[in-house]
């Protein structure tokens, strides 16, 4: 099996078809991440994974090959999720501006995890998912989300507090 770096080099020099292998390799991973970030919104999860691949290809030349491609892709997906939420909120009318606007629809019989994280706002949900489901360290999350480590820590403890209150 060819390594990610080999495929990236080939995609950059020989055209986009080599990138197809990378898409197939990480499509399930990104889709799973999207499902968790959106708390079970399949359509949005598919959209986020597609946007992440598009953005990743656009900036492929600037990818630091000493780092992991999967990790880089995760950061792009989190940013795409953030953009999707912003876009969703931009379309909200003035009368609903103070209400929570982003309400992902749960798949029928949505998992217990989706019901658990539903009370969290999108930012807390993404930090919580990265920390506790994907086991990223606080520093890694800070790098992925372009926040500082202290902010990540406090947001994570706030998210856990909210969940404990809702789950009690």
């Amino acid at each position, binding site marked *: 099996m060819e390594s990610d770096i080999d495929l990236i080099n080939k995609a950059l020099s020989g055209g*986009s078809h080599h990138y197809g292998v990378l898409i197939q390799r990480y499509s399930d991973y990104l889709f799973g991440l999207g499902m968790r970030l959106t708390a079970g919104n399949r359509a949005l999860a598919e959209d986020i994974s597609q946007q992440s691949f598009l953005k990743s290809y656009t900036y492929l030349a600037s990818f630091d090959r000493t780092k992991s491609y999967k990790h880089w892709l995760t950061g792009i997906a989190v940013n795409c999720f953030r953009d999707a939420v912003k876009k969703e909120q931009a379309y909200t009318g003035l009368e609903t501006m103070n209400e929570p606007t982003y309400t992902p629809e749960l798949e029928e019989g949505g998992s217990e*995890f989706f019901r*658990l994280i539903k009370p969290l706002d999108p930012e807390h949900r993404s930090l919580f998912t990265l920390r506790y489901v994907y086991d990223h360290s606080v520093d890694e999350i800070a790098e992925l989300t372009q926040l500082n480590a202290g902010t990540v820590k406090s947001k994570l403890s706030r998210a856990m507090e909210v969940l404990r209150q809702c789950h009690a």
Partner: protein
Amino acid sequence: MRSIEDIIAQEKDVQYTQRNKELFSYYTLTLINQEQAARRLRKRLKLVLWFMLPALVGLLLSPATGWLMNAFEGFSGVNFVRVLVMAAASYALAGVCVLALKRSRLLS
């Protein structure tokens, strides 16, 4: 009720799969190619505009400007034959430009 830790532990074992991976990959690659083609076209258009700029400035400064102004003044009394001739000339010019662009694309 199960604890938060148990729910998270169970979620870690869940595998999500795209509905149709081949189709997804094909569609994403198509979008990538489309975006690249659009970018190439924008780049070429910019280049063409830069090349045309001196010609346009030259045209504005040349005596032909006077003739063009006279031609435009002629539009005040609408002459359909003249309008048709101008339209045909414009379309012919546009056609030549499109052909030239296509040829340059084939050569590149």
